[in-house]
């Protein structure tokens, strides 16, 4: 008995920093920290390079001039005015297409469906569509709209590019609408229906305004994703070296920042490469601002709950 007690004293229950298990534990924590730094490093490196190489070229010329076709002028590559305009137009077209479809579909899933096979199939389809590579959306729009010239005999056009982007935006908008509507308290629905409002009035006047922030967050994130996409545009919207100055231009090829970066990055001329960096700076700034606004909106909803 005495012997046993003595043995117990040998166990030191206080934390021993130098014991093997604690050292191994610390080493793993440090390793995980290093992994975290490695993962964050590219973000900083890319952002720093884009800022350093791009911001030095910010001038009024950049925003007001057209890009010079490669090889014309070896020193001055012009500006990216029409590419900014084109990105805004194509993104706007895709937003206009995907919002009614995505929000409408989301309303069906959250408000009308009874979680039956059809609704489950649509949710599954939305997830699958979200995983479709963006280049496939480009191939699809090329095959169905560009090569068939279905849009008033126009082939490459801003509309075709917008449709291709809307295919990528659709699943995000649909899913965030579905989830945003589910967050709205059921009491509101019952209250509204109980005082005799129709389903339509309940949804448009009570439910949708209450789910505004999550839906808006989802739409902003979808826009931010679409505005940076290149693959669906390279053979649908193509590229153009001219301004869009009238409404018919949406049936013609249109410039965009992302396609400009792609085309000019692969040119052997330094002036064009520099312009690609400038365009990257503008595009990244635009997308980061959109993302941060979306996140702030999302946080705002988080505190509301």
């Amino acid at each position, binding site marked *: 008995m005495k012997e046993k007690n003595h043995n117990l004293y040998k166990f030191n229950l206080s934390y021993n920093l130098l014991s093997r*298990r604690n050292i191994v*534990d610390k080493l*793993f924590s440090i390793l*995980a920290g290093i*992994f*975290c730094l490695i*993962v964050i490093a*590219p*973000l900083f*490196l*890319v952002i720093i390079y*884009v800022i350093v190489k791009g911001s030095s070229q910010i001038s009024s010329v950049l925003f007001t001039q057209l890009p010079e076709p490669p090889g014309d002028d070896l020193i001055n590559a012009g500006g990216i005015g029409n590419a900014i305009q084109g990105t805004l137009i194509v993104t706007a077209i895709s937003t206009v297409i995907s919002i*009614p*479809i*995505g929000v*409408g*579909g989301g*309303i*069906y899933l959250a*408000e*009308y469906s009874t979680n039956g096979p059809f609704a489950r199939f*649509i949710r*599954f*389809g939305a*997830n*699958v*569509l979200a*995983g*479709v*590579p*963006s*280049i*496939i*959306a*480009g*191939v*699809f729009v090329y*095959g169905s709209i560009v090569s068939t010239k279905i849009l008033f005999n126009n082939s490459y056009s801003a509309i075709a590019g917008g449709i291709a982007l809307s*295919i990528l935006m659709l699943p995000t908008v*649909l899913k965030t609408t579905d989830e945003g509507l589910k967050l709205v308290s059921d009491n509101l629905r019952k209250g509204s229906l109980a005082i005799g409002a*129709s389903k*339509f009035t309940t*949804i448009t006047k009570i439910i949708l305004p209450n789910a505004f922030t999550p839906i808006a967050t989802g739409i902003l994130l979808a826009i931010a994703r679409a505005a*940076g*996409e*290149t*693959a669906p545009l*390279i*053979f649908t919207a*193509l590229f153009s070296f001219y301004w869009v100055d009238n409404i018919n231009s949406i049936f013609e090829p249109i410039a965009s920042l*992302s396609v400009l*970066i*792609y085309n000019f*990055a*692969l040119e052997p001329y330094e002036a064009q490469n520099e312009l690609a960096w400038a365009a*990257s700076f503008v595009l*990244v700034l635009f997308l*980061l601002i959109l*993302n941060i606004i979306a*996140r702030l909106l999302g946080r705002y909803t988080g505190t509301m709950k």
Partner: protein
Amino acid sequence: MKSSELAVLFKHRRRKNREKLLDRGFKTFSVAMASSVAIILFAILILIFTGSLESINKYGAEFLVTSEWNPVTDKYGAWAAIYGTIVTSILSLIIAIPLGVGTAIFLTENIIPSSITNFAGMMIELLAAIPSVVLGLWAIFVMEPFIRPFLLYLYHNFGWLPIFSSEPIGPGMAPAILILSIMILPIITSIARDSLNQVPQNLRQAAYGIGATRWTTIFNVILPAAISGITGGVLLALGRAMGETMAVTMIIGNSLSFNLSILAPGNTIAAMLANQFGEADGSQVSSLMYAALILMILTLTINMFAQWLVKKLSLKY
């Protein structure tokens, strides 16, 4: 109140036909919009399948294993691109899994204060917001020149291995693999974070309670509990890596011939589509559609499997 008076009151509350019509119309509208998701998905599959029929009939399964791609002689085989797609996506996953899961553990397991982890988590999500074309530009002008000495070292010292058997000359599969792993890290990290956060706190407390250290707990209790979500995230990342186009196109070299070495220029299906689709005609379009069909089947299978896995295994807790 008499029942006749009540009847009058209710008569006033009877809905107008216009209102009923609007109600029914809105429901029909929402059903139509929801169905359009399925319609688009099927339309994509049908269009790509019919577009590739000509090439499927002509080459059949031979298309998958031959690597000659020659518009002049009208002979097409996609093995080089299929090999590139599989090798780049798998190798980028091998790089990204430990980094991404390690980061997710670091950010969820209370190792550092939560204000720092929130900031780091936001940084990683912003990394996902950088467009792939900008990453491609960065890869061409910054990353590739920077890593070339390391690739040369690999070639000079390990050149006897078939996968390092050619001299790096600039664009190639190795830089494409690196840029792909940067692009899929945010997906793996954020999904792994979500799954780790969903592991019940009780499991952690029980493990600590019986005297396990932090990392014993992580390896033996938390990771096994979160493995389904993490695997789902990894599969989603694999699907994304296979379909990723722009950054890969810009840095992989777009070689049409097959080369086993990852230091040599290569090709992926997505890169081939981006490069050739705009200028293709005749049976080349059909062959590209065939390649697109293969890519579509690959990514769809992986995505469906990932969804199934997440749904099946996440019911455990």
